[in-house]
């Protein structure tokens, strides 16, 4: 009886916490409805592999192709030159190539989620093909190599992780901690005293953004140093470019946080709003899965979101030593978002 009362009271109190209820029950349903609708018309998002056309296809090639298709893999056969061009544009997740006796599989480090799944299927198909040909009593596996599309030097996998970590850290700091701190300070009335002084809001906000900016730079410097000393991870690009991208990204996502904090009354409310922004931003950034199967309008919209161009530029500079020339448009998108979010933040900012 005591246990029942305790249990019942927990439920009662829980049911009064609207925000918790929303996150537990409504939000997953909303996500499902959202993604379900977006991908409904696209059929099953097939995994695809680019296969470099052999000059003279052998029966083994044909058997392999058949096995790949049976496993629902979409095989795009391209001539060598075209395949390489597509690879260096970063559009290929996995590329299969004959090297005379066997095959070789290259996986795109930027699209690891798809590439990893594809690699599993390719190997399975290869085993099937070998068994059918029964020419090889000892089935072989295909060697896998993880690379970034523009890569210059062979680096370890950790060096692909680091820029992602830097970027994600910065995004979550902007969207979650900075905005949350702001809302909770406002809730506790810490800004009210400032409201009766002549201090302009934009000075206060810009001061905070600049502070966070320098925090991020120091934080990044520590990560880079540790990465280098312990894992031998090297920045392949110029540190100036890296600083520029980080600065732009920080400004953008800090401003996002400040802008969102203008829409929330309470810290709980802020958690809801920031997640509503963060999830679509993450899920649709192309980091987790390809949007090939999504409707065109969505792909166009996503191309204008700030997260993907930011991460892409960061990785290109860090891993491939790229210049910023190819990322001008992407960085302009990030910059435009930063400015728009900051203006919104100043307009929406309330002292109390």
């Amino acid at each position, binding site marked *: 009886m005591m246990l029942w009362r305790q249990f019942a009271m927990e439920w009662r109190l829980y049911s009064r916490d609207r925000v918790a209820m929303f996150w537990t029950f409504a939000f997953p349903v909303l996500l499902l409805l959202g993604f379900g609708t977006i991908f409904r018309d696209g059929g099953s998002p097939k995994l695809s592999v680019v296969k470099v056309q052999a000059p003279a296809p052998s029966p083994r090639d044909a058997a392999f192709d058949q096995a790949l298709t049976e496993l629902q893999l979409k095989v795009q056969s391209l001539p060598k030159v075209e395949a390489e061009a597509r690879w260096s544009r970063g559009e290929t997740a996995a590329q299969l190539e004959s090297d005379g006796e066997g095959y070789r599989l290259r996986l795109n480090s930027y699209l690891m989620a798809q590439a990893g799944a594809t690699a599993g299927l390719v190997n399975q198909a290869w085993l099937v093909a070998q068994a059918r040909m029964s020419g090889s009593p000892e089935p072989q596996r295909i060697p896998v190599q993880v690379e970034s599309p523009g890569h210059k030097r062979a680096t370890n996998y950790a060096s692909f992780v680091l820029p992602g970590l830097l970027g994600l850290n910065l995004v979550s700091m902007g969207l979650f901690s900075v905005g949350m701190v702001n809302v909770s300070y406002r809730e506790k009335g810490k800004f009210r*005293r400032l409201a009766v*002084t*002549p201090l302009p809001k934009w000075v206060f906000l810009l001061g905070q953004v600049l502070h966070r900016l320098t925090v991020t730079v120091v934080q990044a410097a520590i990560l880079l140093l540790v990465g280098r000393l312990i894992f031998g991870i090297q920045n392949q690009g110029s540190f100036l470019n890296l600083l520029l991208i980080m600065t732009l990204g920080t400004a953008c996502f800090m401003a996002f946080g400040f802008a969102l904090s203008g829409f929330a009354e309470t810290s709980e409310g802020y958690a809801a709003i920031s997640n509503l922004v963060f999830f679509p931003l993450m899920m649709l950034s192309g980091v987790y899965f390809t949007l090939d199967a999504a409707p065109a309008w969505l792909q166009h919209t996503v191309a204008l979101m700030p997260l993907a161009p930011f991460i892409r530029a960061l990785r290109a500079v860090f891993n491939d030593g790229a210049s910023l020339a190819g990322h001008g448009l992407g960085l302009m998108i990030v910059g435009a978002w930063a400015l728009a979010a900051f203006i919104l933040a100043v307009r929406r900012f309330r002292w109390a």
Partner: protein
Amino acid sequence: MSTPALRIRGLRKAFPKVIAVDGVDLEVARGEVFGLLGPNGAGKTTTLEIIEGLTEADSGEIEILGLTWENHGQEIRSRIGVQLQSTSLFNKITPREALDLYGSYYPKRRNTSELLALVQLEEKADAYHITLSGGQQQRLALALALVNDPEMVFLDEPTTGLDPQARRSLWDVVRRMKGEGRTVVLTTHYMDEAEALCDRLAIMDRGQVIATGTPASLISDLAMPSVVELTFESTAPDPSAFAARLGQAVEPRADLWEIRTPDPKALLPRLLESAEADSIPFQQVHIRRATLEDVFLQRTGRSLRE
């Protein structure tokens, strides 16, 4: 100096469940200490926050130092000083840092150590805000209100939660502000504070100003400015039979009866006679002048402390 320090006309502010300010008119002269007196929930703080620009009124006009919020917001902010009812600062800022920082927001600023001395916080100048006592935090808030050498100072319940000694020393600071020629507007629900500090008062109740004047005139304007008290050893008995014989209202208050009168000299013999006839076991008789508490009571029928 011809314009008043503050002029308010028809100020109104409604919240979803209550009309906090319901048509307030006020005028405060330069150099005056002006008090808003009233019980909790009378609308004093809302009125003050509208004047300070923290809350927006639904309607009404405000002129501060001859300026309006619509046209001269920044100038008003730089010429007034504000102590909020509760001043929440960052936990790990020190009084010295806070005074330096807030001073930097203004074109004109006062010396930090001079302010620390004024509110007797020199010893705590470099301690984190969170480690200060309630009284010390209140004093820092007062110093912050003076950081820009303001012409006009707004203090919201400046002595609430202070011990008697701290209240006295705060009163001294307010008097010094007046001596320096500043206009002071303060809210309080302590009638002794209002009487001791304020040149003029507005008594507020339920969002309205029910009386305005000097403390002395508010009292002498009462229909019955004197109060006769009969005190008892313990709880005062039910006075209804006695009131009927006396032909006058008698109000029981804990261990005494209160009888209000315009003319205590005429009342007293009749009172004693009736008490004798009814064998009322009272112990002492006091005659006192009415207080601001009585002003509130007579105008609203309720006590300030309710």
